[in-house]
């Protein structure tokens, strides 16, 4: 076999492998739609998305997932409120300020956090955070929006931090040196030069962190409480979409209305994470810093 032939073989092998993974994904999406769409024979799209009542096993059943959508959005919002400052600022510290020894330690700790299985974090939220919240604020339940958001933030921080750090690291050295040469302090350089230059990467990091939070299942199943009602306070229990799917799918009769409704909930979730990814992609393009290096 000549070197040229080897080249062709390798090229085709890579092409086939990537084709397989794309095909598998495509088939999953087709399956998702095939199992989810039949619900719209029983209920209109409007009633499904904006219905206030989720009683899938009653007769007649109500398939309204509005409380579940609200729950997903609300825990994602509050978790990003916590995770974005923590993630971005820790990335700034690690990449720009920390001395090399501390930098290495911090980086590995954050990576360790990323490696924690979600069920462990969920269990922590359930047996440690929930009773603590309940005692401290004298609440009826510790399994609520605050608890779920805090645990989800803990999961999103490593994503946000490590991607932001890569973005900050990719800011060309020339930018910083030029800033210092003009007499700017370190703080001014970070705020006015480095962070704006890395903004596209940081936005991508934030959006991907939020996508991680909205799709996360185990944590919300364990600590969000699971009440399928629109919350009135941040200490109310909620049931985000993934929790509903995970809890009910196991025993929903095959190909029943309930089963299709759960798959349709999955479609809604799929569109939401897709939207997050498209936004991340768009931001990455829009704020792209054209210079000697970009991310």
């Amino acid at each position: 076999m000549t070197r040229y032939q080897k080249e062709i073989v390798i090229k085709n092998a890579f092409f086939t492998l990537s084709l397989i993974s794309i095909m598998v994904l495509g088939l999953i999406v087709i399956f998702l739609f095939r199992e989810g769409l039949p619900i719209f024979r029983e209920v209109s799209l409007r009633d499904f998305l904006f219905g206030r009542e989720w009683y899938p096993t009653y007769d007649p059943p109500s398939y309204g997932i509005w409380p579940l959508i609200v729950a997903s959005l609300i825990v994602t919002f509050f978790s990003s409120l916590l995770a974005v400052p923590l993630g971005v600022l820790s990335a700034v510290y690690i990449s720009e300020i920390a001395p090399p020894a501390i930098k290495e330690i911090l980086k590995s700790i954050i990576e360790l956090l990323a490696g924690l299985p979600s069920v462990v974090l969920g269990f922590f939220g359930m047996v440690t955070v929930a009773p603590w919240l309940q005692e401290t604020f004298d609440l009826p339940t510790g399994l609520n929006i605050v608890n779920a958001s805090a645990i989800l933030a803990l999961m999103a921080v490593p994503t946000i931090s490590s991607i932001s750090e890569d973005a900050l690291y990719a800011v060309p050295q020339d930018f910083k040196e030029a800033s210092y040469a003009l007499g700017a302090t370190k703080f001014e350089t970070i705020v006015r030069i480095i962070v704006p230059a890395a903004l596209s990467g940081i936005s991508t990091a934030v959006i991907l962190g939020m996508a991680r939070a909205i799709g996360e299942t185990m944590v919300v199943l364990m600590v969000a409480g699971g009440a399928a009602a629109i919350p009135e306070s941040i200490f109310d229990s909620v049931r985000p979409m993934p929790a509903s799917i995970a809890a009910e799918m196991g025993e929903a009769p095959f190909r029943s209305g309930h089963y299709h409704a759960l798959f349709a909930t999955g479609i809604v979730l799929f569109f939401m994470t897709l939207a997050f990814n498209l936004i991340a992609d768009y931001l990455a393009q829009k704020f792209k810093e054209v210079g000697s290096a970009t991310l």
Partner: protein
Amino acid sequence: MSRLIKIIAVFMLCVVVAAPAALAGGNVVIKGSTTVLPVAQAAAEAYMKIHKNVNISLSGGGSGDGIKALIDKSTDIANSSREIKKQEMDLAKKRGVNPVAHTVAIDAIIPIVHPKNKVQNLSLDQLSQIYQGKITNWREVGGDNLTIVVVSRDSSSGTYESWGYLVLNGAKVTPRAQLQASNGAVVQAVSKNRYAIGYIGIGYLNKSVNALTVGGVQASAKTALAKEYPIARPLYMYTNGTPKGETEGFIKFLLGKKGQEIVKKEGFVPVR
């Protein structure tokens, strides 16, 4: 590479040899109630382990579907968490099917609260009001001035179905109710929360929570069997006439010592 081929060859050989063997034995089709499903499943697995040539196929769908299938003669055993209705009986007779009930287990569900909760007893009506969200404070039922946190199960579980049927009479559980995905998770949630009330199958009760008496009756295997305890119901398997062949074998197995151990392990009260 050659090792891989060997493994594949052995695997294929197994399939070829095993398939006719499976076909040679008896087939039993079981359909119906999701409440009975876990027992039927565990029993079927145990039975197939002993009788290697028997193939049992299981599906849920609810008691109504099971009985419908029995009347259509498309199943050998219909699982049911209720007695057969009169119309169903009439229809069955018309089609020449003779449904025979076998009580295989008793489903008893216990309301539980935090050990520090002063409330020891609730009437069936009070429980119903609490789960519908009409009673919202423990003070209204003789406890401290605390909000009631209602803990329920995911809507497709059999325990949820039984609770809805026996306590709520089909009324809807309040949407503010918390959801837990298993009996164990309900115990965990209630044991950590003095505001909470939950319900579990009798087999899951432990010392971390306090079991309430219902209308003054304590739940136990004895009171459930005597029909004194109100939140209990027998679980049935219906067959067409007296069971024969492998169907008979399976029902005998389930009613025997090993089968009833499975019943207990799945959180139900054994019938003997």
